[in-house]
């Protein structure tokens, strides 16, 4: 992104890296950080001294705000969202915030409406219902 002022996530005007690179949802990062912490325990007698403050605060955050806890469901969430033609960034915002209605989803990620990725509101609604089903059966 050359001009910083123009950056705007609501219009999907964001750095290339957010559009192409793999973005990660809270629940995915929660699994990664858990595994990382375990590895550090094996590598050092004092794992806490090897983690940064950023690591610890991120871990606390994703633990509190992840909507999905176990690795199987986390996989399913990405799969359901990937069925739609979403940018990585949009996919993660939806997976994190789990909007319940089509209006809420569009308010959170306005670009899913304007970029014509969904045929109609019913298609968005179906995706949201699939997501909430995963949550229900976790």
């Amino acid at each position, binding site marked *: 992104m050359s001009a910083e002022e123009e*950056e*705007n*996530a*609501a*219009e999907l005007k*964001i750095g290339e*890296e*957010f559009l192409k*690179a*793999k*973005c*990660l*949802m*809270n629940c*995915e*990062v929660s699994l*990664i*950080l858990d595994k*990382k912490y375990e590895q550090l325990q094996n*590598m*050092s007698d004092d794992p806490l001294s*090897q*983690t*940064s*403050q*950023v*690591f610890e*605060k*991120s871990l*606390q*955050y*994703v633990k*509190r*705000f992840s909507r999905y806890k176990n690795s199987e469901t986390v996989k399913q969430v990405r799969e359901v969202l990937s069925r739609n033609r979403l940018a990585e*960034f949009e996919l*993660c*915002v939806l997976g*994190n*915030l789990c*909007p319940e209605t089509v*209006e*809420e989803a569009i*308010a*959170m990620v306005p670009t899913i409406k304007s970029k014509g990725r969904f045929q109609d509101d019913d298609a968005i609604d179906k995706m949201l219902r699939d997501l909430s089903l995963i949550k229900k059966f976790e």
Partner: protein
Amino acid sequence: MVFLEAQLSWTVLIPPESLFAEGLKLQQAIVLRLLEEVSCRKASKELGYFVAVTSLESVGEGQLQELTGNVIFPITFRCVTFKPLKGEVLVGAIRKVLRHGIMLAAGPLEGVFLSAKAMGDGYEYLPRDEPVFLSEKLSRLESGGAVRFKVLGLKWMEEDREFQVLATMAADFLGPLISDDD
């Protein structure tokens, strides 16, 4: 919050005493040095906060510094990062309730300010031992509670190596979350 898995190329400096160890030990010394370095740098303006190194991808040929005996290795590694973006919707926890607004934190991002003017819905400040903001619809903002907000603007603070964020709650589907919804 949306994290990113980035590939980075840095150099790490290994002191001579770690060099005479066996191969695997040298690898370990490089990893530990890298973790220290990540912890120390904390964040960058371009990539945001460095959350966790996920893998060491490659270690290049070391370059000896003749005076010190240290060896500098160019390395590439993968790292989970987080950078707040303007227009992004985030969930944060309330750290402090002040007369003019509330201070929020979202993981490593700690300097989020939501001004009373950007709350919408007629929130009113109630000065108590534990001050709160209360809305006409009886939504409350109190220390420890969770809030869904949108990033209005942000600024990189070079000295503290962190971002400061101005938040707004004045739009549909933003506002305090009930605890069950965390």
